[in-house]
């Protein structure tokens, strides 16, 4: 994985020193809260309901074991022994004190990590596919271009005061696991007939109060032109994005208002002008330098079938269930991708204790080339595990309550922190996810239901991605009482769709029963081999609506 050079390390160290001074001046009163707030936000520090929250950037979700151990240590030393993995593949601490923040960030910098640009109106952490470097059908490892974008966008003076925050995601396979079409810019790595690698560019996707699917405006941007093209998009946005209304400031509103064709025309005009005046040309030798960090690890030559694995599957039904749901196919024979669920039955989606982080770090070191990934669905991934080691990995995970066999099943839900932690939330989301998880705890029933993604958000800002859940749950506040609005038919993959509201919202007491009715409607309607989303696309919302509100 990528290692900092002296410039990376220097700018991070200098930023810690600068923030240390800013915190000291705030605590002494030299800076007012109004002056300090934008400074702390630029360093990932929010003030939430109970305390300060620190959001640590995990570039494209990739971590070394050493880095994860540091995150565990920081959770113990400065917080309450756990952290929360987010839908931007980041980690949030819920209770660090402001006075401790400079020391925390200084320790974080020793493992080449920071919290820069995890908030504010700038280009945020670039997200990507957790199967990078391991997925079949991958055209190019998406972390290479993600790292290029990270370096280009960090402290970019022209893009430090955008109309609003800006999120970029990259996918290197046709199967989209990075939700690129609901990002401000989504990049799909493609290949032309001659084998050249280029990029499809989508703009104007996003969730929040006005969900939009990104429009493709670039069909094949050549590698060396990518940064210039992105710069052209950013310039058009910076020029015309609405600064007068926070709710209309994202690029999705601009693209929606002027239309994809006009956006494309403007970006191409800007791109042409940039090229004329000497555009930022991505030096291919620099790309090669970065690419070297993401070369495949030293895979062994192994038979694709593993007798050890086959025997263990037959002998251990818990392991067999885990293999069925949590293991994905690897591009190298004899290897597998392991997904570690952070969704234990009745637990908080995305929460991970410091002890669990240490355990995963040890397992990754021993079995997966010393690195791991965070997924935007709030789980962890070990990208390269030998099939013959899968049972040992499972046993090691089980000891730490990390072997829940539910990836992509109904209890593998996304949930934002909601009103339990977040100052913006209107309703709680975690307890709803927990009650649903408990209702559907039975593993046989989960497998019977099959792939079903439930996403929970505690407010319209949609950090829980409810619009793109197969079933989306949005918490709303009605005169001080929490209600839950349900959407159906959303998807965040290569067939991205925004869910449709099914009808009037449910109370906290009603919502789990409502979800069960929706699931039962699906089970009673589906045809052979259909997933929930397939059935929904075939029959539409009406049967669900009828069953759901029939008794009302």
């Amino acid at each position, binding site marked *: 994985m990528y290692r900092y050079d002296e410039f990376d390390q220097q700018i991070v160290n200098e930023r810690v020193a600068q923030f240390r001074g800013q915190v000291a001046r*705030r*605590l*002494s*009163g030299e800076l007012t*809260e109004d002056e300090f707030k934008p400074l702390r936000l630029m360093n990932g520090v929010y*003030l*939430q*309901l*109970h*305390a*300060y929250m620190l959001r640590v950037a995990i570039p494209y979700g990739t971590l070394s074991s050493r880095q994860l151990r540091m995150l565990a240590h920081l959770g113990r030393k400065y917080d*309450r*022994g*756990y952290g929360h993995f987010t839908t931007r593949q980041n980690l949030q601490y819920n*209770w660090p*004190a*402001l*006075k401790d923040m400079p020391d925390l960030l200084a320790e974080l910098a020793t493992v080449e990590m920071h919290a820069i640009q995890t908030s504010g109106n700038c280009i945020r952490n670039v997200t990507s596919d957790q199967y990078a470097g391991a997925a079949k059908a991958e055209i190019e490892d998406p972390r290479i271009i993600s790292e290029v974008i990270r370096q280009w966008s960090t402290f970019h003076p022209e893009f430090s005061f955008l109309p609003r925050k800006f999120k970029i995601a990259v996918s290197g396979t046709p199967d989209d696991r990075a939700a690129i079409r609901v990002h401000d810019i989504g990049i799909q790595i493609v290949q032309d007939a001659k084998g050249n690698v280029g990029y499809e560019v989508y703009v104007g996707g996003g969730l929040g109060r006005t969900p939009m699917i990104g429009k493709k405006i670039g069909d094949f941007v050549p590698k060396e032109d990518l940064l210039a093209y992105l710069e052209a998009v950013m310039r058009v946005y910076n020029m015309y994005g609405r600064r007068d209304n926070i709710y209309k400031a994202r690029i999705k509103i601009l693209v929606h208002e002027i239309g994809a064709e006009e956006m494309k025309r403007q970006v191409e005009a800007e791109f042409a002008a940039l090229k004329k005046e000497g555009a930022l040309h991505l030096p291919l030798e620099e790309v090669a330098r970065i690419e070297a960090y993401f070369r495949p690890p030293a895979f062994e030559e192994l038979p694709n079938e593993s007798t050890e694995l086959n025997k263990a599957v037959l002998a251990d039904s818990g392991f067999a269930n885990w293999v069925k749901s949590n293991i994905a196919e690897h591009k190298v024979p004899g290897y597998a991708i392991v997904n570690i669920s952070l969704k234990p039955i009745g637990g*908080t989606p995305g*929460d991970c204790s410091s002890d669990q982080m240490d355990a995963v770090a040890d397992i990754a070191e021993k079995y997966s080339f010393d690195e791991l990934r965070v997924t935007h669905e709030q789980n962890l991934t070990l990208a390269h595990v030998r099939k013959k080691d899968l049972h040992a990995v499972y046993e090691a995970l089980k000891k730490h309550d990390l072997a829940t066999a539910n990836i992509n099943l109904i209890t593998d839900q996304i949930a934002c922190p909601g*009103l*339990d*932690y977040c*100052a*913006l*939330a*209107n*309703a*709680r989301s*975690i*307890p709803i996810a*927990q009650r649903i998880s408990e209702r559907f705890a039975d593993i046989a029933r989960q497998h019977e239901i099959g792939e079903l993604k439930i996403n929970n958000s505690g407010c319209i800002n949609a950090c829980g991605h409810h619009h793109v859940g197969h079933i989306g749950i949005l918490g709303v*506040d009605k005169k*001080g*009482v*929490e209600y839950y609005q349900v959407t159906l038919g959303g998807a965040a993959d290569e067939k991205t769709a925004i869910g449709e509201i099914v009808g009037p919202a449910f109370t906290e007491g009603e919502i789990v029963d409502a979800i069960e009715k929706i699931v039962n409607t699906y089970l009673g309607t589906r045809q052979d081999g259909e997933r929930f989303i397939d059935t929904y696309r075939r029959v539409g919302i009406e049967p669900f609506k009828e069953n759901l509100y029939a008794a009302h």
Partner: protein
Amino acid sequence: MAQHTRKGAQFQAVTANRLSDGIVVYLTADAGWSESLQDAAVAEGKEAAEALLAKAAPTVENNTVVEPYLFEVAREESGIRAASVRETIRQAGPTVRLDLGKQAELSGVHG
């Protein structure tokens, strides 16, 4: 954002977050700050509430707390109770991870 209070609330108290560590605090009758809602000064009526909030201003000036505001409370036999879910959660911690923090110490509040 969820409403902190409502028009016509009879009883209100003032809350804020402490600057140094962000912890939730309540304004007391002697213009100090306490981590316990039960120590909060409660104002009855709009004018008294505004006067109570004004008492918090110097502590913002001297960098003790940030963003003080009024919120609705009820006076009950068992003590002062926050009226909204949001303020109940601020008072007694998240309704999850009941094994630690304020939610463990004030285990009766979330019921």
